[in-house]
């Protein structure tokens, strides 16, 4: 039992989970301090553990490793702690118990997932992440969010089921639960079914193209703080799983390339700026997926680290504007720079960073990916460059421009509240700090050999990136001046999820109607027969009028008789 206790205490993810649980009981006004204290405690535990494997347990004869800290998982663990802390500060004083619980329980699950040394542990945290995160989707408590949350949950659970199927199949092949490189193909080049299941499970959470709709469906519907938290963990857990399971898998290069491109177009015409940012998540994860396929592991995990910070900063800045004005629609925002200057500056820092301007975190981490792509294939390299320009358009310019400048909405809100400002300042400080002095980040990267060879601020990198950015800025300016830029119009844009939401739903409605009718008719036949049988049994024992009243007992007795008959027949055969 002491071993079990040790297992629970020596796991940062459990510490966070306990913290989340405490907020359910503690007075509401203490929730935020409690969350922060437990995050700090967990961070201290993470630091004191150091690299290595902990929490080994033997389950069904297999050694499981509940906590595995190597260079890769530690980097994710560190950035998850940073993100969790920033989110808590940003949402300081939140009183909704469900939301406070999820604020830490959900990151805890993602953390547990990245630290899992075996597939069983991964699966458990994978499902907990799904369940805890849906609380955030539901947080606003409206019918629309409830339905959206159910859609979200079913897709996340589907991912978990696929993962489980993959794990079971893989175990039959390898007799091991260790979470190591899986590889999509076997020695003959044929696709392994087990790996395919897991690949799709990871792909759902990473929002691969056509599996991505749940992101836009669920994330923008949450609360301000909820959307920020959601945007961080699920997709990054998937990125980590892909890094661990499928590094250098060539298919990922093409999937990632598509992921970087297609959200750009949706993002450009989207009016709801929060939705624009959710498309940006797809695009950003695309860069990471591409890097995993290229085998540029440093690029993938480094970019995940950076993205969590600068994308989070953008979400926070937009959230602050939304908190003050009550809307995130481009048509209803604009001109806020006059009264929200701090938020505006911080938002622009995030925008510069996501666009990879030199001197920011984005520049440092993006270089690692583009460099890898150049050595792979000209087309992929060009695609990524084009996508980078697209990032600048939709995330780097569109978000700050339409929120703080563009046409004056006439709104004159106060600047962001203190908690939000503190979180954003910390985020912005990291964007700039790591941009100028990236060595601490480098020290965390898994492939130290590659780090030694990598120079972010080479003349070539800077010139290449500046050319790209300046031309893209020029393009934006020209488009806006000539009024060719897609105007902000209040509209709902249909994504491919329309396919399963409209024709798909009518099909399901039809199918469920048909199956219900079949079931009812079959049931009618069955109960008709059964009633006849019961009537015969009861004609001996009592007046027929009482049959309906004694039906339940008769029914029970019948079951007993059936079972006895079954056991007797079985004993005859044995």
């Amino acid at each position, binding site marked *: *039992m002491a071993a079990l206790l040790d297992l629970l205490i020596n796991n940062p993810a459990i510490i966070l989970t306990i913290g989340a649980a405490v907020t359910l009981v503690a007075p509401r006004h203490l929730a935020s301090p409690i969350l922060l204290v437990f995050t700090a405690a967990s961070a201290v535990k993470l630091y004191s553990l150091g690299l290595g494997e902990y929490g080994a347990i033997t389950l069904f004869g297999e050694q499981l490793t509940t906590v595995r800290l190597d260079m890769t998982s530690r980097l994710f663990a560190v950035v998850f702690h940073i993100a969790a802390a920033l989110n808590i500060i940003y949402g300081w004083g939140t009183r909704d118990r469900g939301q406070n619980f999820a604020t830490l329980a959900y990151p805890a699950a993602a953390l547990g997932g990245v630290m899992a040394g075996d597939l069983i542990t991964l699966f458990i945290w994978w499902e907990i992440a799904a369940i805890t995160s849906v609380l955030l989707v539901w947080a606003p408590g409206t019918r629309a969010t409830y339905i959206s949350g159910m859609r979200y949950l079913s897709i996340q659970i589907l991912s978990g089921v696929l993962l489980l199927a993959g794990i079971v199949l893989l175990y039959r092949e390898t007799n091991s639960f260790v979470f190591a490189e899986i590889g999509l193909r076997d020695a003959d080049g044929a696709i392994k079914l087990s790996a395919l299941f897991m690949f799709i499970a990871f792909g759902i959470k990473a929002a691969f193209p056509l599996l991505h709709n749940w992101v836009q469906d669920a994330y923008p519907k949450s609360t301000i703080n909820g959307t920020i938290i959601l945007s961080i963990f699920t997709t990054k857990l998937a990125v980590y799983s892909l890094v661990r399971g499928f590094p250098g898998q060539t298919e990922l290069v093409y999937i990632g390339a598509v992921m970087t491109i297609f959200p750009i177009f949706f993002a450009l015409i989207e009016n709801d700026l929060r939705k624009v940012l959710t498309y940006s998540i797809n695009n950003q994860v695309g860069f990471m997926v591409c890097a995993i396929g290229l085998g540029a592991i440093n690029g993938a995990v480094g970019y995940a680290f950076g993205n969590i910070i600068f994308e989070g900063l953008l979400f926070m800045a937009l959230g602050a504007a939304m908190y003050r004005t009550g809307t995130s629609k481009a048509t209803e925002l604009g001109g806020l720079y006059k009264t929200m200057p701090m938020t505006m500056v911080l938002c622009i820092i995030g925008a510069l960073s996501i666009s990879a301007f030199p001197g920011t975190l984005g520049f440092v981490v993006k270089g690692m990916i583009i460099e890898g792509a150049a050595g792979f294939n000209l087309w992929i390299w060009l695609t990524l460059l084009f996508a980078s320009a697209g990032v600048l358009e939709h995330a780097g310019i569109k978000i700050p421009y339409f929120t703080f400048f563009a046409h004056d909405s006439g709104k004159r809100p106060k600047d962001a509240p203190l908690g939000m400002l503190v979180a954003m300042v910390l985020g912005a400080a990291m964007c700039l700090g790591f941009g100028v002095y990236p060595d601490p980040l480098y020290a965390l990267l898994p492939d130290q050999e590659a780090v030694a060879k990598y120079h972010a601020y080479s003349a070539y990198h800077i010139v290449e990136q500046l050319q790209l950015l300046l031309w893209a800025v020029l393009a934006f300016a020209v488009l806006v001046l000539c009024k060719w830029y897609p105007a902000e119009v209040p509209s709902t844009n249909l994504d491919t999820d329309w396919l399963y939401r409209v024709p798909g739903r009518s099909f399901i409605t039809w199918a469920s109607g048909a199956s219900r009718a079949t079931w009812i008719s079959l049931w009618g036949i069955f109960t008709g027969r059964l009633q006849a049988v019961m009537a015969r049994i009861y004609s001996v024992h009592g007046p027929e009028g009482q049959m309906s009243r004694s039906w339940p007992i008769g029914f029970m007795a019948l*079951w*007993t008789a059936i079972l*006895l008959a079954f056991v*007797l027949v*079985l004993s005859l055969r044995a």
Partner: protein
Amino acid sequence: MNMIAQLPVLPVIVPLVLAPITLLLPKGRAPHLYATFVSWATFAACIFLLREVAEAGVLSYHLGDWAPPLGIEYRVDLANALVLVLVSGIAAVVFPFAYRSVQLEIDKHQSPFFYGALLICMTGLLGVTITGDAFNVFVFLEISSLSTYALIAMGARRDRRALTASFNYLVMGTIGATFFVIGIGLLYQATGTLNMADLHDRLAGQNSRVIDAGFAFILVGIGLKLAMFPMHLWLPNAYTYAPSAVSAFLAATATKVAVYVLIRFLFTVFGFDFAFLGAAFTWVLLPLGLAGMFVASLVAVFQEDVKRMLAYSSVGQIGYMLLGLSFATVEGVSASLVHVVNHALMKGALFMAVACVVLRAGSHSIHAFAGLSKRMPYTTWAFLISGLSLIGVPLTVGFVSKWYLLTAAFAAGHWYAGFLIVASSLIALLYIGRVAEVMLLREPATEGKYVIAKQDAPLSMLIPMWILVAANIYFGVNTDLTGDLARRAAEALMLTAGAG
């Protein structure tokens, strides 16, 4: 007189002799205090007995000095000592708890009968557990069942449906008992003995249709008593309409004792020499256990009545115990025994919490639970913690149970069963989560019949309930006691069954 030598008979003889005196006491407080005292004395005797057995090994007591196999033998080993402590322990908590609840739910002039019947019920359950004589099991089973029928019917003051529930249970219980006694009769015909140990010796090597049929009758008879799916239909109504305190006591003890009897007959009386045993595990207990885990749990999800939900959940939880048994390994049987104890702790606490709500809100509908955390925080948290335990959250006994079960499932090579255990725990999360959501997040009713004043249950109810909740956590952290005892008990059982 040497007390230690007489110890094995005390848990039965003390309440059996003292119970009728309850009827002579003045109505009101006196029967309650008296019955509480008797239950504590019995509990103390059981604790001594467990300590004695844990140190000295199996105790055999010859009733009236008639030597077995002719005389009745009380035979106490670890397995039944554990169940004895469980039953008397739950009784020792439920009796003090019952007073306020009974005051509300039962006519004052019935109170001596109520406490007397409850004592007799406890006696019957203890007798079933302690005896080493197959026919004696039937006698005590009837003693406990008859008093149970009366106790459930006493719920009629609040809800007339208690009468039909009790009647249904009467019919079904009688069928079960009849099957059981037919089975015993067949075994007696084949062997000429009723003593369990003696039966085991004489059955060895025998292989006849009579014994097979006897086995089938006994399995189905006990299966009915322990509410094995699909013979569980009597249970939900019985538990729902019984007086709250009775539900708490029965849910924690009655089916558990039946599970114990099943274990005793399968392993001690029949044993692995009996050719048909393996088929019964594979084709009856395993599939029905799994089916119960899912069907009953799913039904529980859709219940509007919290007591009924808990009752269906009990049927599902019995599925876990049957599953553990069906592995027919030391791990499986010990997991089953551990769950017998642990499930009693959690279900006892849960039903007690419902009793507290009934006391204040006058209903066990889920609507009465709306915003309960603001009205009755201590009751709410008792329900939540035991609910988490039911789901199997770490640091609670539920987790320990699931852990042992999972380990047993995988050790026995039943992969899919392991995953099904996890899946059905998720269903438990659903039905407990539903109540949790109503209690924590809804606003309390401001009009209509579910309005509750901001006043928690009285201390006489809170203290016993929280003792059980604390036990849920204590035995969840410190598993040495239950885990170790259950394992030793299972090893002894398997040894007599002739494993290996």
